[in-house]
């Protein structure tokens, strides 16, 4: 799990800001740190959300450097309106995804079950722990693909080892590009940006194609095909 900063004791660095806070107690967040803590995400993530997802952040002009602030009610409204995107869920969230309220819709049930499995993989990547993703895979699962022009293929154990060696990749940004289900089999195309880690380096991008099989009522990944994109 990414360690998220607990909501910090409020520390104000300038008198100007302090007075602003005094005037509107509890209603504003006065730094990236506070905004991040309020949203329980890293500063890096919330800064990104400002540019990519229109997180409502305001600026005050100062002589040396602008300061940022945000209104809690605006942040709350933004959170409510923001489309709940499962890819933003982090480790363990695969288990707490809300139960599908349309249990009679077979397609949704299968689709959700499959994304849950792939989220285990994502959680393992984020945490840098092979054991976290192991339950997503069939015991006989295999992997193959190219990395820097070298072909790798073999047991999925190689992936778990590699994940352990790579360590945490907290900023990975996965997207489901395609989910195709045919009764008991499925393929999932996952695009993952912002890979990092000891082996990866930084800002790498990978495409994964997973094949899944529904065995004894449970979806399991039987094969992981990958391609690392050139930088």
């Amino acid at each position, binding site marked *: 799990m990414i360690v998220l900063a607990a909501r910090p004791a409020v520390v104000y660095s300038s008198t100007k800001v302090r007075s602003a806070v005094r005037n509107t107690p509890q209603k504003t967040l006065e730094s990236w740190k506070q905004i991040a803590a309020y949203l329980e995400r890293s500063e890096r993530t919330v800064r990104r959300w400002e540019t990519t997802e229109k997180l409502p952040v305001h600026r005050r002009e100062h002589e040396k450097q602008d300061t940022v602030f945000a209104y809690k009610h605006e942040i709350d409204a933004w959170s409510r309106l923001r489309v709940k995107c499962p890819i933003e869920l982090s480790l363990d969230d695969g288990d707490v995804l809300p139960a599908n309220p349309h249990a009679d819709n077979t397609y949704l049930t299968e689709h959700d079950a499959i994304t849950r499995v792939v989220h285990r993989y994502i959680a393992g990547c984020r945490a840098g722990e092979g054991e976290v993703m192991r339950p997503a895979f069939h015991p006989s699962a295999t992997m193959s693909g*190219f990395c820097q022009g070298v072909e790798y293929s073999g047991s999925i154990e190689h992936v778990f080892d590699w994940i352990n060696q790579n360590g945490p990749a907290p900023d990975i940004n996965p997207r489901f590009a395609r989910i195709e289900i045919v009764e008991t089999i499925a393929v999932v195309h996952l695009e993952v940006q912002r890979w990092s880690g000891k082996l990866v380096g930084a800002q790498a991008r990978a495409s994964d194609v997973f*094949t899944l099989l529904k065995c004894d009522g449970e979806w399991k990944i039987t094969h992981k095909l990958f391609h690392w994109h050139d930088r």
Partner: protein
Amino acid sequence: MANTQQYLTEYDGISKTIQMYIDGSKQGKSELMRPAFHADASFFGYAGGQLAVGPAFLFDWIDKNGPAPKIEPRIVSVDILDSIAMVRLEVGGWSGKLAGSDVRMSDLFTLLKTPSGWRIIQKAFHWHA
């Protein structure tokens, strides 16, 4: 894909590999499809409630099933991502000693681009009862 010509080249390479699988299925001869598969290929799916695993099972099945002259294969989708690809194939009109008659099968192939061409790295299948 960088450009249309490159896409078409890759698409044709993939179709050629899938065609080997189709030819082998039609004639009931596994040797026709073997070159389409990667040395480390895997194979998964349920056949009559039994989980079938491994390309050896597939090749053996194809040989024992014999000719299936009336199969109607259709490529439903081809997705290419540089060195990897996935193909969905629907095959109707399956027949033969093991298949019975007029059975439909769905295949999800994943392929890897090797120096000697596109190779199937995994075939997942579903028999429609």
